[in-house]
């Protein structure tokens, strides 16, 4: 199975099957990335599609000597920021409403029934993390990027990545402790 770098090299040469394979491999992960960032459900597909199209448009800028995932998430982050900017411009009240909705949201019946209150609390806490902290936590925890890869994707110093990740984890821990009245169920 060819890796992403090899596929991108073939995409640069104009091979259609490599492009299809690459997109099939990444569409779910990019969708999940935006989902975990708190993207609106009806826009997740569009955002993921935009990233894939941008990957193709910017294929000549990709350096095959470097990892593919940081490069792709660098594009995804720009698409995300663009989405947030456009949403603020088009619907100035939208972010506030979403924040209020998110703050007021209680764990759903299914989550409670399955004993997943902690998951619901965590999800809410992640959605309330500041923008860059949320992206870094999602990239490290869910997408498995190394600190250095995140620094490369976001074009920020390594120390900034570490600090923001530590801060994000600290906030999540506080949220979970508070939701349990001071105690956490251990796994």
């Amino acid at each position, binding site marked *: 199975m060819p890796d992403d770098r090899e596929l991108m090299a073939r995409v640069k040469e104009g091979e259609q099957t490599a492009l299809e394979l690459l997109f099939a491999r990444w569409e779910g992960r990019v969708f999940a990335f935006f989902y975990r960032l708190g993207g609106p459900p009806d826009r997740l597909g569009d955002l993921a599609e935009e990233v894939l199209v941008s990957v193709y448009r910017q294929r000549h*800028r990709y350096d095959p000597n470097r990892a593919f995932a940081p490069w792709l998430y660098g594009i995804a982050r720009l698409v995300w920021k663009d989405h947030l900017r456009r949403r603020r411009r088009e619907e100035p009240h939208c972010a506030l409403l979403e924040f209020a909705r998110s703050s007021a949201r209680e764990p759903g019946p299914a989550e409670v029934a399955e004993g997943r209150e902690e998951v619901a609390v*965590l999800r809410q806490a992640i959605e309330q993390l500041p923008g860059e902290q949320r992206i870094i936590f999602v990239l490290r925890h869910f997408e498995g990027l190394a600190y250095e890869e995140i620094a*490369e994707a976001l074009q920020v110093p390594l120390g900034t990545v570490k600090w923001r990740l530590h801060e994000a*984890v600290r906030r999540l821990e506080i949220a979970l402790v508070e939701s349990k009245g001071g105690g956490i169920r251990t796994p």
Partner: protein
Amino acid sequence: MRCPENTVLVDVVYGECATEDHGRILTHLEECQKCHERWTRLRAVLAAADQWVVPSASPGIAERALARIATERVRRSPADRPTIALHHLIGSLLFGAGAASLSLFLLFISGVHDQGEMSPLIIGLTGILWTALYGGVTLLALHPRYRRAAFAALVGAGMTMLVTPLLSMSSVIEASHRWAGPAHMSSLLDAVVFLAGILYASTPSFVSGASITRAARATALEDATWLAVFYALLVAPSVCLQCQHLALHLTVAWIAGMLAGAFLGSLGGVWVGARLQMATSG
């Protein structure tokens, strides 16, 4: 061992801790009740995050992206289509005219007219050609593919022209004559002039390439080639004016040296720029 900070525990969880520290911290966690509780709490938080299930991706994302790309290939999208706005064109021409005027002025104060009379027609044609070259490279700087190389070439050519009054081609060739000795052996003189041409062009190419391009390693060769080509084009009028009264073999040696120097300097500069980029992003 002192109790590790929470930030260190996060690094351990994510495998971002040095191997030797990793073992020592895990040993400490087994021995220290307080740290063990912190560790367990942290693991619980991250384990809860792991339980967060993402719904299946909406169908057809890749297919829609492929369809858009296919459409763009047939009918290139406005974003990809090279368009030149009128104000960019006018701005580039104005910049080109200004740069060309300044370059001609610097050439004249360097004493190029002392080597022989130049007709107003030649000066006028050179000015027009130079305006077109400066303006054209400035326009290319608007294109994502050539942006880095075009900017670097403009800076490199600017440096070369600014240095010209202090270090003109004629003074370099005179120095080469002296260095080659009284015999003035043609082949030795050509070699010295060739090396002088390399030095003359490689220095500004290297500096501008290193300081401006910040290229990715994969595109370094391409960037260096474009930088060398743009630079050579931008300094070509100056070289032509300064070479017009030189012997043919010296002109050939000088131009060959400058071309080699432009390419080698650009390659070295872009390579250093890429290394700097890696160091600063790492």
